[in-house]
């Protein structure tokens, strides 16, 4: 693993916490790189928020935490940095703005106390622009909507010049529409910031859009961690059993089909078309393919309305032995199966009828391919 090599060099985030809070026992250990968004994912009450609070020093359990070569906690040496001595930014579930300060002074509260080098490369105006909160600065928190409060809270955390940004379900208190309004700002942040972000969520849809890597937590323990797409296509993990199980693919805008109004996205193994003109040629986007939208054919179908058909090789078939009506088929795209993996959910009857088996060459048909987020990767919203 490249992560463990990075750890050996003293880079990245290396966390391990173990202990009991009330009746709940937490015993987690995970690593994360010093870049991108790492999602801590699990059901409510699984301990992911506690793990995040331990990282900020707001909670103290036994264990150790090293961030980019610095020791924040190490029980062996008795090291435990107080929260205010840790260069973190923390975005709380309920924004947690200071009610006695205006939005501007909430932002300044963080900026005034910032210490250390500027890792994000953002000044006050830059943060205000990035988050689109210029018109809110003179308002009191009570006069802001939930989404606006959360944007100000994010700005406040950024202006404290964190080395690491921790976000505790920042969208879970918001309604669906507001979430959709805020997600683009988070995406812009991911593409702008040079600091790593740990993002706690129980909503897989948020992490599909934002996360590069996942740490899966259940009942106080880490059950898996790795790249988002690796975990999505791992047949042993609960992600695959979800009704809306899906796979995300990194893709590049390759071609515009102006005649039919389609955009072609290049993925390893072929091109996928999405309706509409999306992004700029060469820009990177994230595609989502839901397992229930994927079907398979032994030979390349010619008389079908399905637009996106790519060659693939079957990697595994799960749930075949059990008496389930549906099974998940993991395939690797490309004639030789060297491309990214996707998951299709089909009936066990079809598997038997077609005689599908691991190693077999098939054609994967995608009834629908969704573009995650908008074309904000190239230009942040303003």
């Amino acid at each position: 693993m490249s992560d463990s090599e990075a750890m050996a060099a003293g880079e990245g985030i290396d966390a391990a916490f173990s202990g009991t809070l009330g009746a709940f026992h937490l015993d987690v250990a995970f690593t994360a790189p010093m870049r991108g968004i790492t999602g801590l994912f699990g059901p409510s009450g699984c301990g992911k928020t506690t793990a995040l609070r331990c990282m900020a020093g707001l909670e103290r359990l036994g264990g150790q935490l090293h961030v980019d070569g610095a020791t924040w906690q190490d029980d062996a040496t008795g090291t435990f940095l107080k929260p205010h001595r840790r260069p973190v930014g923390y975005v709380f579930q309920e924004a947690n703005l200071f009610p006695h300060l205006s939005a501007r002074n909430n932002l300044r509260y963080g900026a005034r106390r910032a210490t250390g080098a500027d890792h994000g490369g953002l000044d006050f105006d830059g943060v205000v622009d990035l988050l689109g909160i210029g018109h809110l600065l003179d308002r009191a928190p009570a006069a802001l909507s939930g989404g606006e409060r959360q944007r100000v809270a994010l700005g406040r955390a950024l202006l404290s010049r964190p080395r690491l940004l921790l976000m505790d379900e920042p969208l879970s208190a918001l309604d669906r529409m507001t979430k959709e309004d805020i997600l683009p700002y988070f995406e812009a942040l991911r593409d702008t910031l040079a600091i790593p972000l740990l993002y706690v969520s129980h909503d897989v849809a948020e992490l599909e859009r934002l996360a590069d890597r996942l740490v899966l937590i259940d009942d106080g323990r880490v059950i898996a961690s790795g790249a988002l797409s690796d975990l999505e296509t791992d047949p042993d993990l609960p992600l695959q059993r979800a009704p809306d199980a899906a796979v995300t693919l990194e893709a590049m805008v390759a071609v515009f089909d102006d005649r039919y109004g389609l955009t072609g996205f290049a993925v390893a193994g072929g091109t996928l078309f999405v309706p509409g003109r999306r992004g700029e040629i060469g820009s990177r986007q994230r595609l989502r393919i839901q397992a229930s939208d994927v079907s398979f054919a032994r030979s390349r179908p010619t008389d079908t309305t399905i637009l996106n058909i790519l060659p693939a090789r079957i990697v595994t078939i799960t749930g075949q032995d059990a008496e389930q009506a549906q099974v998940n088929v993991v395939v690797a795209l490309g004639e030789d199966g060297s491309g990214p993996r996707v998951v299709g959910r089909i009936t066990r009857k079809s598997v038997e009828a077609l005689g599908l088996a691991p190693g077999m060459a098939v054609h994967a048909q995608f009834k629908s391919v969704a573009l995650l987020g908008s074309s904000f990767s190239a230009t942040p919203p303003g």
Partner: protein
Amino acid sequence: MTDWAELWTPVRLTLELALVTTLVLLLVGTPIAWWLARSKARWKEAVAAVVALPLVLPPTVLGFYLLVALGPNGPGGWIASLGGARSLAFTFEGLVIGSVIYSMPFVVQPIRNAFEACGDRPLEAAATLRASPWDAFWSVAVPLARPGFLTGAVLGFAHTVGEFGVVLMIGGNIPGETKVLSVAIYDYVETLRWTEVNILAGGMLVFSFIVVLTMMLAGRRIGRPGP
């Protein structure tokens, strides 16, 4: 004839006593209120009960113990001996000490409630923004507890203005030194000087009404955040 200077002396003394007492109470009561609001110690309610005792003790009982404590053989007498005096009883300083203890619950309780109402979350946010506990106390906890401070200060001041039993026990009746308003009114009634009684008692009535009204109005206004 009404002697206005004679009337003014106890009024001025009372206002001085109440002002000094309130300032001391804010200084002493704030850390106590903070500790009571934040500590997880199991015996903290015992401390809270001690602070609240003056609410239920008859002022004469409290005054008796204070008299003993402030007298030549008590700790107050020892402190007084450092300054060359024999006793803190029947002095202005003694009155301040007595008033601080007597009015303590009226200041500590509202401030404690206000600290508890602001909760952990703003302080956690402050900590993640590099504010040390001391910094967060001044920049977050105190501003958020502003209504509690206002209530505590007004109640402490007004309660000190109105005290009688404790003053009589430990202060006696020395004009310009310990003869406060309530004692003066009692004196005037004893000597049947009704005009003076009416002026002072009427004045107290108006003063009390203004205090209560101000607090209610301020309480409604102060909840809203400043700039």
